[in-house]
Structure formats: C-alpha cells, structure tokens
C-alpha cells in the first residue's frame, strides 16, 4: 500500500515536471495569449508551486478563473496562486475533487474553443456566467473566497487588521479615530 503511494507520488511529480516544461515552452511561444490573460505568471512562480495533484496548465487556468471571479488589480498573481495551492490541498482530502477539477477544466477549454487561456476577457466572463450554479463553479467560487479573504496578505491590502490581542486590542489603536463625520 505504502509502496504504491510512493510510486504514485513519484509519478505525479514527474508528470507535473513534464507539464511544467511544456507549459514554459508554451508561454514563451504564445506571448499573445499571455497579454490577453489576466494572470501573467512567470514560469518560476509556477515552479515554486510544486503541486501534487494539478498540472501547471490546469493550475494556470484555475488561477486565471479565480482572478476573474474576484479581480483586484492591486493583487499580485502570487495571491491567486495561493488559491490554486489550496485547491491542491483540498484534492488531498476530498476524493471526488479530481474529477470535478478535470471536468471544470474540460468544460472551460471546450467552451473557449479548446483554449481557455487564449480566449478574450469578455468571452471568458460570458462563459463563466453560463457556469454559475453548477457544482464546479460553486466549488471554485467558494474556494476562491475562502482562500483570498482568509489570507493575511489580502487583509493587509484591503485594510482588515486581523488578530489584535497581541497589540492590546484597539482601545488605544484607533477604535474611535473616525475623523470625517460632521461634528
């Protein structure tokens, strides 16, 4: 059993390495596609991800969709890659998720004439609308929300200050510092 798991892991690592190589080639070749794509990842970022269950192309697609769902121009791509990382972790614990993700990828690519990442933004948004309410969409929607808005990096960017006990609360740190109300 254990042996089989180790073998599986080795296999998966290999495949993602292979996909990654293919992907970086693709990225080099298709800069046109890149500029259309709201996610503009560099290859090294993908490399860092080191995902067990997701090949790099799928990872890129998921990051792209999560940015389309909650687009914050000020956020670096790495923040959306954290969403993908969480999807990968979910896949470890939720058995049916592999099917769901490959289903989702297939639907999106099919709808975008075989290549989601090269589709135009407006087209992507329209396509996403048609998916609303589906199990695949709901998963990704919820996952994106929970990954983004539970992320302390995001909190910093939007002004939520998180845990405060270590700073003695807000009693002396602006709980009543509002200054724009008329007196």
């Amino acid at each position: 059993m254990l042996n089989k798991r180790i073998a599986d892991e080795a296999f998966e690592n290999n495949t993602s390495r292979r996909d990654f190589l293919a992907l970086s080639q693709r990225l080099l070749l298709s800069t046109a596609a890149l500029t259309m794509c709201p996610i503009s990842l560099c290859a090294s970022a993908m490399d860092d991800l080191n995902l067990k269950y997701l090949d790099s192309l799928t990872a890129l697609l998921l990051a792209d969709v999560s940015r389309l769902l909650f687009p914050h121009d000020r956020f670096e791509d790495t923040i959306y890659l954290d969403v993908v990382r969480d999807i990968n972790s979910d896949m470890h614990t939720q058995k049916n998720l592999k099917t769901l993700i490959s289903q989702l990828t297939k639907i999106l690519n099919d709808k975008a004439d075989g290549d989601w990442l090269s589709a135009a933004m407006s087209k992507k948004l329209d396509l996403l609308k048609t998916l609303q309410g589906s199990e695949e969409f709901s998963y990704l929607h919820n996952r994106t929300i929970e990954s983004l808005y539970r992320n302390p990096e995001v909190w910093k960017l939007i002004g939520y200050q998180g845990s405060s006990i270590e700073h003695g609360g807000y009693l002396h740190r602006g709980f009543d510092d509002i200054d724009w109300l008329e007196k």
Partner: protein
Amino acid sequence: MTKKFNLSDDSVVVVIGSGAGGGVLANELAQRGIDVVCLEAGRRLAQADIVNNDTEMFGKLTWLDPRVASGQAIPGFPVWTCKTVGGTTMHWTASCPRLQEHEFKARSTYGEIAGANLVDWPLDLQELAPYYSLAEDRMGVTGTHDIPRLPGNNNYKVLEAGARKVGYTEINTNNVAINSEARDGRAACLQIGFCTSGCVIQAKWSTLYTEMPAAEKTGHFELRPESMVVAIKHDKQGRASEVHYLNGDGELKKQKLRAVCVAGNAVETSRLLLNSASNRFPGGLANSSDQVGRNYMRHFIAGVVGEMPGSVNIHRGAHQAGIVKDESGHNPERGFAGGILMLTAPFTPEIFAKFLQPGGWGRDLASTLENYDHLAAMLVHGEDLPEMTNRITVHSKQKDAYGLPVPIVHYKEHPNTTKMKAYAIEKGKNVYRSLNASKIHTMVDVFPATHNMGTARIGHNAKTSVCNAWGQTHDISNLFISDGSLFPSVGCENPTLTIVALVLRQADYLEDLLKRGNI
C-alpha cells in the same frame, strides 16, 4: 473543590447544557446548596484555546452536527449555536436589552393576526423586572447598576451620526454584558473586536468562565463535558428518573436524578424531548399538547452595509455596542405588528464576500471588498410571530454520529415579518444614505438563526403550552425547560438576558419545590 456525584445518586438535579440558560441555572442552584450535575455535549476549552481568528474559533465552538433545513431555513446550516462548555455565550455578542412591557402582551397588543398563534405571556414585565435586575448585575450589563456604557467605536459613531440625521434619538452604545471597567474578577474590554470568537480577555460574559468556575467552588456542582444526552427516561409514575448520555468515549451512561432541566437551545431541547418518546409518551416527553417543537421563532436578521465617504475600520472594537431603539415600539401605522432594533455589527472580509451578493462575483463586488476599510454595517432585527407550522421535528431516517435522529428545522416567514423586514432594511439604508454612502448593500435571508425560541412555550393552559409560568412542564412535574424555548412570543430584543432572568426565576421556584419535598 470540584465534586463528583455517583450515577446512582438520585438526589441530584441534572441540568442539560452549560450555555446561558443551563450555566446560570446550574450555578444558581449550586449556590443555594442544591447538588447539580451539568451534562454538556461539547468540550471544555482552556483560555489558551481562544484566539483572534474567526475561522479557527468557528471550528472549535460551533455545533456542526447535521441539522436539516426545511422551508426558508438556511439549507445545510439552519441554526447557528455552539457545542462547547459555555454554549452559545461563547459566540454571542452580549447585547442585552430587556423586553418591553407590551411585548409580554403580544396577543392583547397586536390583536388577532391570521396565521399567528399569538398569546400573552403568563407573566408581565413587572413580575420579571426583579429578575432582569439580578441578571444584569450578574452579567455586568453596561448602563445598569451604575456600570458605565462602553465608549462608541467607529462603526457606532457612523450609526449614531446617521441615525441623528434621520431624526432618531434613542441611540446609545447599548446594554451589553461586556465589562466597561474591571468587574467580577474580569478585565475591561480592550475593543479587541473578536466578540464572536470568544473573548480572549474574558471582558465579555460567557458561562465558561463566569458561572462554571463559580459553581465549582460551591462543592455542589459537577460539570461533565463531552456528555451528549440522548434520552430522558421516566419511571412507572411518569416522572423523569434518569438521563442517558454518551460520554467522550461513546459509552452510554445513566444518571439518576431528582429533577432535570433542559437547556439545549430550542432546537436541541425540542429534539431531546421528541427523541425521548416512550410507550407512555409516544409523541415525546411533555408533549401531550402537541406543542413541543412548534411555534419556533427566530428574529429576522438582515445586514445593511454602507460604503462610506471616509474610513471606518469596522473591525475595531466591541461588535454590538451600538443600538437605535426608535423603531422598537409597536406602531401599526407602519403596516405590521411589533418592533425593530438596529445594532452595529462588524463582518470580516470573508463574510462580506460570501453574503453581500450570495453567489456573486466580478469587478463590482471585488471593488466593494477592496473598500473594506470604508464599510459601515448594522444588523436590523425584529419581532417574529409564533406559528404552529414553524417547528422542530426529528428525521424519520437520518441519524447523526450519536445514532440520534437529526432535527429538522422548518421555518417560513409570516407576512408580518416580510413587511417588517422590508421596512427595517429601508430605514437602515436611510441611516447610511444620510451620510452620503456611495453604495449601500444588504445581506438578507443569508444568516442562519442565532436567536432560537418558542418551542416549549410557557402558559397557563396545558392544552396550548408545554410549561407553566416557571418553566415546569405541565406533564412531568420534575422536568423543566430552561432556555429560549420557553418564550410564548419574542419581542424584538436579543433573547439572552430574558433567558437568564427566566431561569433565575425558575431557580426560586425549583428550590421551593425541592425544599417542600414536592418533587
């Protein structure tokens, strides 16, 4: 000195649940020298387990065993309560207004309302007032007993300024069971802003660190955490004789008793009574009236959120230290019966993301979330009416991990509530509009019920109510109900202060019965 009682000791009073109702009742009885065993389904957290992280604390505190929703109850998670020592006083935000005089007389004040099973309470404000006062003192409620009110935070200041602009005058930082100054061995609020995650410094009243340790000091009290009561059993005379519970190792234990008080928070209280059905009581315990589980009430709770012209930093400070009471009266000209409260309430980015537009996405929503520091928010809630058909039942097939039939929570809004809700939301919006909010959002019908009441109501008539005016069930003299299930109607106020007042009154009555050997 923590005491241990034998399972065979039939002189103890068993209290089921350690939240607002159970925790207070158990301690109060123990203080009077009555031996009490408190059975609590959840774990006992240490103070170090409490952290400033909503997601983590939700996992540690919340009752996550399955509950089925029906009607307009929120699918999958109809009710938000806690399963831990301290019960939902861990999550609660400690808002403690009293019910108003007319709210004890709902039927006489509002008249006949089609579809509503309205009644007057079997007691009035005057009768409950001394117990309200005891409850406020015990819980350290601000604005009572010379306890100063909390200072207002930014979100309050926005509410106050907006409310004044639209002409409201009954505005203050509320009566909250949160220390504004050190009291009762607990610290003053530091405006930490994580009230619903359990208060790290114990400024907020929770039975975990008030009632429980106080009861333990008496030598008349034993708390058994991780003890899920599965049934209350009765003897040949039809009197409650023991409770069966599963301990942390899943072993079935049987505790003998003299009296038993159920404080599981309406849904679980109803479920336990129904799941305890026997040959003699086929419809469940104390249910000869067929009212157990019926007349289930909540408050409609809706969020109103303003994108304000300047920063608010809503997350800073005590959650519900801010209230507007101008709409809380009964004014039929508004087109509905009953009143409304407006209360400050902060939300995390995640909650806004989930509920500002449920299922929503895209640039507009993201831009609102990016504007997080400019958001101000309030909750509006109002009186709900009792209806026979809004009820807790148990599932015929589905069971939880304890092997117990899961509860079904069926709730449909009365037309009165629908009208009231629309009105309340509009009034809430006006508050932020008056301060030139650039956008105003609402969060409607998205929150699971946090206030759960009315499923074993008190009344004089055993045919139309489950308990007498003291919460003693009409059918079984040594079975008491000690939580919000008792409410015949709910007013518009947050329920917990009233629950505590009712169980303090019950303690007097129960002590008297025990002393006189009547049970």
